[in-house]
């Protein structure tokens, strides 16, 4: 053990650790929006699950405390309040997570849209980066912005 410790003390560890999945600018890799999507998928996933816990507790109010408390809670969501803004952010996270998740299920679980193996030829861009999932990824970003804006309209302007 002492020997191993001595050895690891002599080696420098440049491993970025958790910074790698919160910092999209850690490495500058061209032609790789998937990495941004990966980081956003994680961050939105964490936001969405924290929202989920709060949502389950808050929707328990009618059963726990009755409908009067529920009405008071709903009033917090009317107009621009801290609750409604946080709610709106959580909705955006869920929308992105769902849209990107559709692409991930297709690519990861079903291996669809990731191109097919080929003999490498110039300009040497991997089939994964040319596959249908790339189109889906761009569609994800576009749809996300549109849906989130629509949701903002529904929440704050109706």
């Amino acid at each position, binding site marked *: 053990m002492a020997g191993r410790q001595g050895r*690891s*003390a*002599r*080696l*420098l*560890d*440049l*491993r*970025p*650790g*958790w*910074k*790698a*999945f919160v910092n999209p600018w*850690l*490495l*500058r*890799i*061209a*032609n*790789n929006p*998937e*990495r941004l*999507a*990966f*980081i956003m*998928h*994680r961050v939105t996933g964490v936001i969405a699950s924290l929202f989920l816990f709060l949502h389950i507790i808050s929707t328990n109010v009618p059963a726990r405390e009755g409908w009067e408390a529920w009405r008071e809670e709903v009033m917090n969501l009317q107009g621009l309040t801290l609750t409604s803004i946080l709610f709106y952010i959580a909705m955006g996270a869920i929308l992105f997570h769902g849209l990107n998740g559709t692409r*991930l299920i297709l*690519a*990861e*679980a*079903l*291996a669809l849209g*990731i*191109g097919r*193996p*080929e*003999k*490498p030829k*110039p*300009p*040497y*861009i*991997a*089939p*994964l*980066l040319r*596959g249908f999932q790339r189109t889906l990824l761009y569609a994800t970003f576009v749809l996300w912005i549109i849906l989130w804006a629509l949701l903002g309209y529904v929440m704050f302007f109706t």
Partner: protein
Amino acid sequence: MAIFDARAAVMIPPRKVKFLIRRYNPEEGRSWWQEYEVETYRGMTVLDALLKIKEEIDHTLVLRYSCRMAVCGSCGMIINGTPRLACQTQVAEVASEARPVVKVEPMYNFKVIRDLVVDFTEFFEKHRRVKPYLIRRDVEERENPKYEYRLLPEEYESFYQYSLCIACGLCVSACPVFASDRRFLGPQALAQAYRFIIDPRDEGWAERLEIVDSEDGVFGCHLAASCSAVCPKEVDPGAAIQRLRSLLLRYRLGLWKKKISGPVGPLEKKAERKPLPPEAETLPGVSLEELEESEVEIPVDELIAG
């Protein structure tokens, strides 16, 4: 990433380029950035520049390299924030007149031994763990083979791309999961696992699937695709891992069956020549019988002279 940038071949780098190199001295336990100024020439690679620094400016700079032409995979480094092979990167590609600076760091996700040299022990350990070799049940046949194994061209094409890996470690240094998860097998090992699992000549697929079936194996990957974007050999580890995961899920559901091919057996005997149909005619002055009897003559001297 345009790994193969045709324009780079004709680009001219700035006359003087500043090299910022992240150095590390294990005896003192000290890490610092050091500056060098290098006079460039057209076609200079980053590796050339580093060797020039080592030869002319600072002999203490330590780096690992071998073939200088992207075959051995020794000189992986982070150049201006991108994991690349130093020998494959033109200075002109990464430095411009507006910003004649090249930042060189040792690869992330590896331990640094000294300056730009990193420790590959963990990397090779993980590669070894997925059994990157053909496994046959029939030991007798394997030790004393009489015939080669059958491999159809389309089967060959399904894993050829993944067998081009040169183990340079760029994919691992780009992987965001590997950066935080020490136990993750990494893109290189998983791509190699897939390459051997779908090889029809291999019979060790079940044990390999057991090895990769964990959070630190194939399920550690979350499709950031950085590995595929930095690979200098277009191995596409990202796609290999997705295929492996899909295959593993199908296998667990009983929907995937491995295709195994054995030795081809003896070749058929040369068949008798079928006689030409009566309407077929040879060119005037050519006799088929004579042609078959005579030796092939290639006029080598004439061809060279011509």
